């Protein structure tokens, strides 16, 4: 059977499974809709959190980013895992004990202020929308790549599926489909990785494989470093970013992870405080399986690429090369006219993507209109690192189809988790808590469902018409989460003295300075664009890493302001006392 048929079959089966689970786990109350009734086992919650966390970008993109940035890629590996330690130790157990439905619930109650609640809602909505737009786009891209449909059609199909189970089941439906989605995505990621590792080094464990030697007895990483330095690239195991920047980016990603609302609310779904701690451990374990395999795939793929293409005549290139050239993910221009591929440092093209035109050049390669003046002749899209794996390893068609299903599972699970945060923010934090306090549970549930529909439509709109800044807003999402939620929640738990005035001014200051910095140096919306280059960064910190500074500003402002204003009321201090003791967590309540 062809790849196409297999893909339809496997994607069809997985979608039927998700929809079946959604029907089985319909939500009957707001408690089920918001936090799955609070009865999810730590293991199931760990699996769901892992699927929630790992997006299409983790599944398809991360190995590629690492393959093409070497040591610098470590910021994502450490940043997107280390945050779970902070979650488990500093946030999750206490927020579970607090026992409400949302992050703005905590901020609003702990800081006895609807202003604080509103700042939190706005930040939660903003962070989730920026994030979800990319996910819906990801669903479309995966569809178009594997099923030969338009990207937009893919977005529509994705919207329909997510809508179905988010509308019916809320958090309950999402949780159990995410459990299934994790199994699909990790299987799809690991099978090709194991085969590639065996091919490259004879070791079936990729994590060990990329530290082993190939058939020639040379360690793989040494070989790769050698290949790269010989051609003028920086050695793979050395980075090009400054130490300061690596430090700040890693920190921003860690604190951002710990402050993302769609991750935090997952810990409201377990029955007890100790379950919240344990499920954070499970979540990180399941995430680590993929995150420790990705750098191995990166090394295998990069070595394979360097060895296969360098000075190889185009006529003798393996078939995967021309196949991905046909899809536009690889482009080659024979700049020196020798018919061989030269892969060197520097971009092979002007701009971000190769612009293809009709017709073939001398050796049968596709023509592009925008080659650059550097000696590098080869453009490679980073996404092929994972996509091309099964073919390079010569795996059967059904595994290629499985990778498609895995990519879709990753994108859908993350999108669903984010959409739930958006609909909850609207129905619970805005309507129930601020605008119409006395609505019944049934009515609130209906509003929650309608908000989910609205959120899917808006997310779908952004997926079809991606705002130009989507790629850069991931930095913004993490930066904002790090500079707003993380400090506000941590101080709310660990300081009894922290008050309304301190927390609000801290959040506003952190958000403002981070937004300004990213608008100034990443988006070029404010200030002179000519001075927005890396030379003008404050302390050499890139916009991606600036969330760390925003977080420090938040802490500093909050601590100073709270010293000059009155301490929180007795009742609030009792809340803090109470959340520090794990017993008596009971059920989350809607009051």
């Amino acid at each position, binding site marked *: 059977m062809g790849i196409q048929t297999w893909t339809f079959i496997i994607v069809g089966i997985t979608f039927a499974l998700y929809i079946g689970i959604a029907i089985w786990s319909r939500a009957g109350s707001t408690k089920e809709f918001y936090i799955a009734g609070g009865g999810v086992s730590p293991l199931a919650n760990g699996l769901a959190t892992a699927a929630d966390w790992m997006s299409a970008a983790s599944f398809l993109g991360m190995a590629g980013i690492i393959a093409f940035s070497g040591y610098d890629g470590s910021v994502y590996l450490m940043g997107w895992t280390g945050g779970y330690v902070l979650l488990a130790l500093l946030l999750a157990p206490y927020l579970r004990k607090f026992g409400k439905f949302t992050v703005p619930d905590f901020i609003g109650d702990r800081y006895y202020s609807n202003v604080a609640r509103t700042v939190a809602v706005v930040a939660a909505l903003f962070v989730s929308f920026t994030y979800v737009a990319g996910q819906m786009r990801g669903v479309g891209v995966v569809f178009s790549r594997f099923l030969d449909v338009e990207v937009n059609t893919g977005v529509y199909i994705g919207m329909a599926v997510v809508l179905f189970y988010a509308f019916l089941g809320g958090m309950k439906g999402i949780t159990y489909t995410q459990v299934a989605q994790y199994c699909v995505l990790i299987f799809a990621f690991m099978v090709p990785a194991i085969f590639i590792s065996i091919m490259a080094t004879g070791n079936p464990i990729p994590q060990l494989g990329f530290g082993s030697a190939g058939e020639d007895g040379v360690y793989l990483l040494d070989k790769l470093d050698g290949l790269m330095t010989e051609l003028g690239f920086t050695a793979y*195991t050395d980075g090009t970013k400054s130490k300061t920047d690596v430090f700040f980016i890693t920190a921003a990603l860690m604190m951002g992870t710990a402050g993302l609302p769609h991750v935090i609310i997952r810990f409201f779904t377990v029955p007890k405080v100790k379950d919240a701690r344990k499920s954070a451990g499970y979540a990180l374990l399941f995430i680590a399986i993929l995150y420790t395999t990705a750098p191995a795939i990166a090394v295998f793929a990069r070595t394979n690429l360097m060895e296969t293409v360098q000075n190889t005549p185009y006529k003798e290139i393996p078939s995967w090369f021309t196949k991905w050239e046909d899809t536009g993910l690889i482009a080659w221009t024979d700049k020196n006219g020798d018919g061989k591929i030269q892969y060197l440092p520097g971009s092979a093209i002007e701009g971000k993507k190769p612009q293809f035109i009709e017709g073939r050049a001398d050796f049968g390669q596709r023509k592009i209109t925008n080659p650059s003046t550097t000696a590098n002749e080869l453009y490679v899209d980073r996404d092929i690192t994972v996509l091309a794996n099964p073919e390079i390893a010569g795996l059967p068609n059904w595994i290629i189809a499985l990778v498609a299903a895995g990519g879709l599972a990753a994108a859908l699970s993350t999108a669903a988790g984010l959409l739930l945060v958006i609909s909850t923010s609207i129905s619970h934090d805005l309507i129930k808590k601020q605008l119409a306090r006395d609505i019944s549970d049934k009515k609130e549930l209906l509003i929650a469902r309608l908000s989910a529909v609205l959120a899917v439509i808006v997310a779908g709109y952004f997926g079809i018409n991606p705002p130009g800044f989507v790629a850069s807003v991931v930095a913004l999402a993490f930066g904002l989460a790090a500079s707003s939620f993380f400090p506000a929640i941590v101080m709310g738990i660990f300081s009894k003295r922290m008050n309304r005035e301190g927390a609000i001014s801290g959040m506003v200051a952190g958000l403002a300075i981070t937004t300004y910095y990213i608008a100034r140096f990443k988006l070029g919306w404010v200030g002179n664009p000519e001075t927005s280059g890396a030379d003008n960064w404050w302390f050499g910190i890139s916009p991606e890493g600036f969330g760390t500074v925003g977080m420090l500003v938040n802490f500093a402002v909050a601590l100073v302001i709270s010293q000059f204003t009155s301490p929180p009321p007795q009742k609030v201090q009792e809340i803090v006392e109470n959340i520090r003791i794990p017993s008596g967590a009971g059920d989350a309540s809607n009051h």
Partner: protein
Amino acid sequence: MELSQRKKYWRENLKYLAILLVIWFLVSYGFGILLVDELNTIRLGGFKLGFWFAQQGSIYVFVLLIFVYVRLMNKLDKKYKVNE
């Protein structure tokens, strides 16, 4: 629960957090970033040690840290009878 007991419980919790977070900082920001060049002179099979910590070791330690924390806290909860 008595106020003094609560305080003791909280203080022990903070002590665990401090120790675990020092290790968290050390394996990632320490070994993986600040000391990476020094550690890269040491080899672990085919890996330079600093590179290994940045792309593998730190993640393994993170997972371990959470499960150690779970164990420590379960014991502490039992000791102060706040377990469920």
